[in-house]
């Protein structure tokens, strides 16, 4: 491939941290840096080589746009385990996913975003239920894709695991679109309740179109021991310093080499076997891109037509 792929040290480290958990399909191309044309002004005569170079850059930009879909449409990438892969099954699954997306809008959101889900529930009064909370995990490939929402309701921590393609979901609203420093926020279970308490009737916050997704760099303090997980070993970035809480032994243990796994950054095949190759990603996203764009256009039109109120004759 003509694309220059440069892996930065910082992002590499983040990826290794992410390997602790099993959701890492989308990280195959850690950071794609594409050469930008230096002289936007066109010279009088373009040589063949220059033309070739410009074409390559345009192609690379297209590719970059295509490959960046792996963040918003993460669940379209299949399970990277080669034992479970089958081209026909993946194609049929993608078709079902697009069919579901044509009936309900599944917006772009990330771990750390505030999301409200309206879903049909046969046991609820009125047969409908709305739950709003912070997304603490997004996991699964294909129709198995799911996410967990967490909130404090009546002084009780509540978490609900929703399937993204569940046909009982009527609407998914993104209240606040943002990212956190980590890929999973399970440490909120060991944090004080105010860090996962959000008012249920929050108004959605809108951002200008095309702006980058903001990253909330909040550092969460943890409650005193005991915890559900030994967070000091997990290398979480969104946790405030906890060394003062730990006993001397646990502090010593957390610094042991066996929990740090320094060798993993040299394991080149690990990354390859746990991710989908770029060639496959391009194939998948170029297949779904057209349909997704069509759906987006249709939805935009519908929204405009709904806003327009026909003036009525007075008197």
């Amino acid at each position, binding site marked *: 491939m003509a694309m220059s792929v440069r892996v930065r040290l910082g992002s590499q480290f983040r990826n290794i941290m992410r390997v602790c958990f099993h959701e890492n399909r989308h990280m195959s191309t850690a950071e794609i840096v594409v050469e930008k044309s230096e002289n936007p002004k066109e010279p009088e005569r373009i040589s063949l080589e220059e033309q070739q170079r410009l074409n390559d850059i345009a192609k690379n930009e297209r590719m970059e746009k295509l490959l960046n879909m792996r963040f918003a449409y993460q669940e379209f990438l299949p399970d990277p385990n080669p034992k*479970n*892969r089958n081209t*026909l099954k993946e194609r049929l699954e993608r078709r079902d996913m697009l069919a579901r997306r044509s009936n309900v809008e599944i917006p772009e959101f990330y771990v750390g975003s505030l999301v409200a889900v309206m879903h049909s529930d046969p046991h609820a009064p009125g047969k409908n239920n709305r739950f709003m909370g912070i997304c603490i995990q997004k996991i699964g490939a294909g129709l198995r894709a799911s996410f967990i929402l967490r909130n404090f309701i009546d002084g009780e921590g509540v978490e609900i695991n929703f399937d993204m393609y*569940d046909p*009982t979901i009527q609407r998914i609203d993104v209240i606040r679109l943002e990212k956190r420093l980590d890929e999973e926020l399970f440490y909120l279970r060991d944090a004080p309740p105010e860090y996962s308490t959000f008012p249920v009737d929050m108004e959605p916050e809108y951002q200008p179109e095309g702006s980058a997704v903001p990253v909330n760099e909040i550092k969460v303090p943890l409650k005193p021991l005991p915890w559900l997980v030994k967070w000091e070993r997990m290398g979480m970035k969104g946790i405030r310093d906890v060394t003062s809480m730990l006993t001397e032994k646990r502090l010593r243990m957390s610094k042991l080499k066996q929990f740090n796994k320094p060798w993993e950054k040299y394991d080149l095949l690990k990354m390859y076997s746990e991710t989908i190759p770029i060639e496959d990603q391009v194939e998948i996203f170029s297949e779904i891109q057209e349909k997704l764009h069509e759906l987006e256009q249709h939805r935009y039109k519908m929204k405009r037509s709904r806003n327009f109120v026909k003036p009525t004759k007075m008197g």
Partner: protein
Amino acid sequence: MTTLLKVLYGFNPLKSFLTPKPDFLEITCRSKHRILPKPKKRFPPWLIKSTRSTRYEDELTSENKTFLKQLVQEKYPRPESGYGSYSPLNLNIVESAVEWSPSYQRAGLIARKIGVYPMWMKDGRKVLTTLFQVADNHVIKYQPPETYKPMITKRKTSLPPSKGSLIIGADSADPQLFTKEYCGLFEESGVMPKRLLARFHVSPEAALQPGTPLLASHFKVGQYVDIRGKTINRGFQGVMKRWGFHGMPASHGVTKTHRRPGNIGSGGKKARVMPGTKMPGHMGNRYRVLKAQRIVRINTKYNVLWVLGSASPGECNSCVQIFDTVLPLKNCNYLKQTPYFPTYYPGRDEELPEELMVDDLHNFNDPTIMFTEDEE
């Protein structure tokens, strides 16, 4: 007189009781069937050594290779749409005019297990479905019950055999890959040599002409099927993984016996290990049948079956045999269904849409499921 006595003695009903019997200790077998079946003595004669041990690629010039390729293409032209690979009998299949009756046994299919994914029922329930691709099935050979002599028969009955044998092949491949003898198996049907073969016992009424293509629409949605396949090979396993024993405590003074079975026999007169005792050993890599699984969705374009449940034998991309269920309370007769008999013929039977679904399965093209309050 002596002859008369002999005859009387022969008819004596008490003869069997009067003969002395040695006093044997009765030993019960805990397992209903043998865990490891007896190895078959005779090799099935229809299963000839298929693949060639050596291929003399170097001795062929490029012209020879192109000539061979051309020859294969001439003999087996491109497939027609909806039929899988080429069959010479596509155009004039002899369709059987016999009507279906519950006593008839139909042919089965060879399918590839391609994955598992969830679907939702109309009541909002999430179910797991297994996908099977019916890859390119053709009838290879039929033997009527008179000439069909199976190698191993379980019961020796005096009745004449009632079922014939139907051999079905799947997954066409280049004839150069196989031996001459193996390619000879496909001469009668005229189809390309197949990688996979399977035998099904069928009623003579359900016999199919060699060369007939079999499609996923051989089955109907809502029908129950049995799935036979080779389970995942797990190697030599302990008693906890193989039989689900609980093992022994991790602490409280237990040493070296955390995953062991414990006692396997008793003392006294029966001072031995009973046959069929659950013990460590080789796990998996055996043929197992999963009975009465419901077909909920069929794709007639890609020939894919969606079967409810995720417990079918074998790993992903392995091959299984699928046939009408043998369970009496789930078969077509009990559920008042009429299957396509002897199989689905695209010309004779009604034209099917691309997607077929049972009524209680949610189609992803349908709008969101809404529950309404019961008005009382």
